[in-house]
């Protein structure tokens, strides 16, 4: 398996993520239980959407302490590619792999719709040329309202770490932020669901360029070795 999709109790987009990577994009993918180690030879990890541990305490707060998270931390520290989608984004923020936090939507409603997004010129992989100036992707969340203190926000903007912005904003997210990356450019997180927009029976196909942009280094890079 080249792409590992972590399964927590309550994950529910794990199969969709696996299907989109394995059968649509064509990279070997597999699901890995949160209590198992990250398999050797994995080159990218997707933390999928869902309601890990029932969203108890805070979204992602309990998943952050799952056994696999120490492997994920070392994988990311060594430059491994990590993508958190929806609840996966919340988990990455809780674990400190990405800055900030996601709180309740300002409308106090669960928002489930095909959302218009503005693409930012973030880096050589995520930009308006590789993707498009505007995308539509499904969103489905109650806690997608991105928050960070002024200092973090200033750094995010100064380093072009914002990947996607809502247009219009469905949840009160600060600076309309829908997705960000870390400064190193190997950890990505977003509330929209690219894995739900990859086939002709989906509302649109805009998830494909997003997943391809994330998985692009797998074609050239050698596997990241986990330290024992």
């Amino acid at each position, binding site marked *: 398996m080249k792409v590992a999709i972590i399964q927590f109790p309550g994950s529910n987009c794990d199969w969709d993520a696996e299907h989109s990577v394995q059968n649509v994009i064509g990279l070997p993918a597999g699901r890995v239980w949160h209590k198992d180690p990250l398999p050797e030879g994995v080159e990218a990890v997707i933390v999928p959407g869902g309601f890990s541990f029932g969203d108890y305490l805070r979204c992602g707060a309990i998943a952050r*302490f799952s056994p696999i998270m120490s492997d994920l931390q070392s994988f990311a520290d060594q430059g491994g590619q990590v993508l958190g989608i929806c609840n996966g984004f919340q988990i990455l923020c809780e674990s400190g792999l990405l800055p*900030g936090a996601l709180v309740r939507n300002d409308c106090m409603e669960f928002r489930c719709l095909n959302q218009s997004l503005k693409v930012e010129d973030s880096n050589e992989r995520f930009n308006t040329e590789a993707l498009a100036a505007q995308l539509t992707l499904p969103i489905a969340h109650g806690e997608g309202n991105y*928050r960070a203190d002024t200092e973090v926000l200033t750094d995010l903007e100064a380093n072009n770490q914002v990947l996607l912005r809502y247009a219009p904003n469905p949840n009160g997210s600060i600076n309309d932020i829908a997705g960000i990356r870390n400064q190193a450019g190997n950890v990505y997180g977003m509330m929209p669901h690219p894995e739900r927009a990859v086939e002709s029976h989906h509302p649109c196909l805009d998830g494909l360029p997003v997943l391809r942009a994330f998985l692009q280094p797998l074609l050239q890079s050698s596997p990241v070795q986990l330290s024992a």
Partner: protein
Amino acid sequence: MKVTVFVSPKTTVLDPQGAAVEQAIKSLGHHSIEGVRVGKTVTFQMEGSDTPEIRDEIDRLCDGLLSNPVIEDYRYEITSE
């Protein structure tokens, strides 16, 4: 001993739940009430007594799991129950 941890949204962070509850309070006619914030309480029994070491342990628990320092503040009380 019993530990009661109070977790609340930081005053600088938007609290949509507090805002919705405040709206409901006002709709009931209580116009003198404002600044509603909704947090949570976590209680647990713990062996030991109120020492700096125990407080360090509780702080670590609060900072890592029970609250997220990016968006929440916490305080706690220790009683002998």
